[in-house]
């Protein structure tokens, strides 16, 4: 290829979980998220790869698909790119099909469809190590000869076969020859006529037949004559009760099986693998649930026990920095801004980084091991009762990390009503941004020394269960009563287990740490400065409490107090609630500024525990802390979630509904906690 010729665009396609993103990362050096469950990639990503001769080619990593007949939004993205109908991307010049070598029958079914796009095709025979371990003998040369396109064996996760793949990408890729699968006679007549009507505009026979099948399936892109003919044939098949699409699937599979048989490639046998042994336990109706609950408990105990050490170090570091600043700077507004504003705000949140990393470590293990799909399987029964399928559980579980990827992951959900319901309840799953709020309020509710680690873990688990349980109840309400219709049946591929990759898990933790620290250094820093200003001016008194009360923030808090008083919240909590509308963790930094405690977690908890109402009664009683915790379990305090919900639902209607119902629910639930708690004699 000449240096001056335009870059070639190559689409990377394949079944879900075939290793497309791993191969894409290996070829481009990028770090797209990978995992061991179907539906990790839900968006197209581009990156530059270089052939062995140094030619730059643009690769487009696409979401996984089982066929060219898209049934979910993520599959639609892939199909649109392949057909050149995706805004902002040119039609690909070639296709790199990534197939799972241990599951060739189903993977090659998709390849036969991709070949009909009429584009040059190269096949990466990925995971050859897995196939060989299962006793499958592969013959890439025979496959290449039979299908008429090149097959390159690869092990993307180990970087094997990449040189050969780069070399192949640099050569002239082969355009597939004529169709090899046998079309049923009735259908062949229809396809022949439609293809002839369409081929007036293009030449390739295979492409014309592929286009004819697309038109028959309902595509409206093509000349009028061909479309009318396709409509007429579709109607005729309907009247004759001829399921033409079933016959096509059948014919393709027949061809693939015959071809694999002739190439001497047998399917892998079932049984006797680690996956079978592990599944015997984790899919067991009783033991499976015990494993799931045990894993969740381990996660929460780790969040408190293991994280306590690094949190102590960060705490000590901020105390030391505060001390140095106190000594080095003379008294005045600048020192106040640094210590009471920036250090208190940023330090108050950064201290929770170890807990968030532990959460991501565990989620990374679940995703990379292959367990996530099993959890969805176990929960399908529960999900079915609320009108969803187990498939919706994967986006919901992702929302424990953050609602934004969780909402994006709903693209794998085929049923539009299921998808909308999942989006609406996803923010109820307690995300990592709630951890700082939960930890602070739990510590404020009960003296830390009085509660053993398992007690804190159980309390934290209780908050997660409250959010999840409510999400299920509301999913039922939305799905059955608001949106209507039945729940779709579960069809979900369970990938083989694999040892979680240290690199993948640590990379995810690293990326999350960077994201968290970037947020602390931008959004939280900016809000801390604004809040310090609002809580310092106008300076009406030398007494810190009176000064805060008379400040802009104090006036706003006092204005809100009549609304918040029924919940047991005072005006200072009101400042925290308003400030954390943008992001939940801002509540902790706000309270650190409000109570002038620097970046120390213990200092904030002590200040909160000694805060009183004007009559001397404690504000942060266990009951008020519980009401505040419940408020944060339910409230949608995250502008980014609103923005992503708007994008994924295509308008403002549902994000506004989400904001209103979650805020209303949070207020009502916190009020009920106070009313019921007081009625039971708690204060």
């Amino acid at each position, binding site marked *: 290829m000449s240096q001056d010729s335009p870059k070639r665009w190559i689409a990377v396609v394949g079944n879900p979980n075939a290793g497309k993103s791993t191969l894409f990362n290996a070829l481009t050096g990028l770090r797209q998220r990978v995992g061991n469950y179907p539906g990790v990639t839900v968006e197209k990503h581009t990156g530059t790869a270089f052939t062995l001769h140094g030619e730059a080619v643009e690769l487009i990593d696409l979401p996984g698909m089982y066929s060219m007949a898209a049934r979910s939004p993520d599959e639609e993205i892939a199909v649109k790119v392949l057909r050149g109908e995706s805004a902002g991307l040119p039609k690909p010049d070639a296709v790199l099909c990534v197939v799972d070598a241990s599951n060739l029958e*189903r993977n090659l079914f998709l390849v036969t469809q991709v070949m009909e796009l009429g584009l040059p095709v190269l096949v990466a025979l990925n995971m050859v190590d897995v196939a060989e371990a299962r006793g499958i003998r592969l013959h890439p040369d025979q496959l290449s000869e039979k299908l008429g396109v090149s097959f390159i064996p690869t092990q993307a996760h180990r970087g094997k076969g990449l040189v050969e793949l780069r070399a192949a990408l640099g050569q002239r890729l082969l355009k597939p020859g004529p169709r090899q699968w046998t079309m049923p006679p009735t259908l062949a007549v229809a396809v022949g006529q439609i293809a002839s009507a369409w081929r007036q505009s293009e030449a390739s026979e295979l492409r014309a037949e592929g286009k004819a099948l697309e038109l028959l399936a309902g595509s409206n892109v093509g000349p009028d004559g061909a479309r009318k003919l396709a409509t007429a044939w579709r109607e005729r098949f309907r009247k004759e009760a001829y*399921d033409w699409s079933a016959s096509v699937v059948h014919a393709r*599979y027949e061809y693939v099986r015959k071809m694999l048989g002739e190439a001497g490639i047998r399917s*892998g046998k079932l049984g006797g693998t680690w996956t079978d042994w592990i599944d015997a336990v984790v899919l067991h*109706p009783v033991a499976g649930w015990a494993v799931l609950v045990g894993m969740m408990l381990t996660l929460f105990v780790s969040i408190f026990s293991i994280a306590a050490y690094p949190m102590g170090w960060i705490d000590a570091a901020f105390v030391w920095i505060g001390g140095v600043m106190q000594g080095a700077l003379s008294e005045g507004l600048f020192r106040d801004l640094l210590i009471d504003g920036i250090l208190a705000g940023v330090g108050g949140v950064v201290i929770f980084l170890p807990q968030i990393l532990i959460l991501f470590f565990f989620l990374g293990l679940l995703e990379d091991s292959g367990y996530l799909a099993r959890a969805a*399987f176990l929960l399908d029964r529960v999900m079915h009762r609320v009108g969803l*399928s187990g498939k919706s559980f994967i986006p919901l579980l992702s929302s424990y990390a953050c609602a934004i990827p969780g909402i994006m992951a709903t693209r794998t959900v085929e049923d539009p009503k299921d998808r909308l319901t999942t989006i609406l309840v996803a923010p109820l799953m307690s995300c990592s941004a709630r951890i700082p709020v939960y930890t602070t309020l739990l510590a404020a509710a009960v003296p830390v020394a009085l509660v053993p680690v398992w007690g804190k873990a159980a309390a934290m688990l209780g908050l997660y269960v409250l959010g999840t349980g409510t999400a299920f109840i509301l999913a039922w309400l939305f799905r059955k009563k608001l949106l209507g219709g039945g729940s779709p049946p579960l*069809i979900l591929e*369970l990938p083989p287990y694999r040892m979680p990759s240290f690199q993948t898990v640590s990379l995810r933790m690293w990326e999350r740490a960077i994201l968290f620290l970037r947020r602390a250094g931008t959004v939280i820093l900016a809000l801390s400065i604004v809040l310090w200003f609002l809580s310092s001016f106008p300076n009406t008194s030398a007494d810190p409490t009176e000064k805060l009360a008379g400040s802009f923030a104090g006036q706003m808090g006092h204005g809100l107090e009549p609304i918040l008083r029924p919940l047991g919240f005072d005006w200072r909590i009101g400042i925290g609630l308003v400030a954390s509308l943008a992001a939940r963790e801002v509540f902790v930094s706000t309270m650190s500024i409000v109570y002038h405690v620097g970046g120390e977690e213990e200092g904030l908890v002590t200040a909160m525990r000694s805060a009183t109402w004007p009559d001397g009664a404690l504000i942060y009683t266990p009951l008020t802390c519980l009401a505040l915790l419940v408020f944060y379990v339910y409230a949608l305090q995250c502008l980014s979630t609103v923005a992503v919900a708007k994008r994924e639902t295509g308008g403002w209607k549902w994000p506004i509904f989400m904001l209103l119902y979650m805020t209303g629910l949070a207020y009502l639930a916190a009020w009920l906690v106070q009313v019921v708690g007081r009625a039971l004699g708690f204060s």
Partner: protein
Amino acid sequence: METSKNRTEGDSLDLTQVVSGDEVRVRHLNCAPTTCQRLREMGFCENALVTKIRGGADLVCWVCGTRVALSARLAKQILVEHVDGKS
């Protein structure tokens, strides 16, 4: 203990009625057209060989070299026959 029911020649047998560990051949799909098509694309097409790995409220099957989880109500719509010809 799960048992194969209605294993008489000519009677229809759905996937929920198959004993775990048995290999069967898909004879007919009786579900909504889009669901049928997705099942076929995932390997559950007519004449395909399927091994039931686990039964219960939801099922796990081995088809085309992969494990696929199915809800029981969907499995009831997959009519099969034993590979020895008995249905």
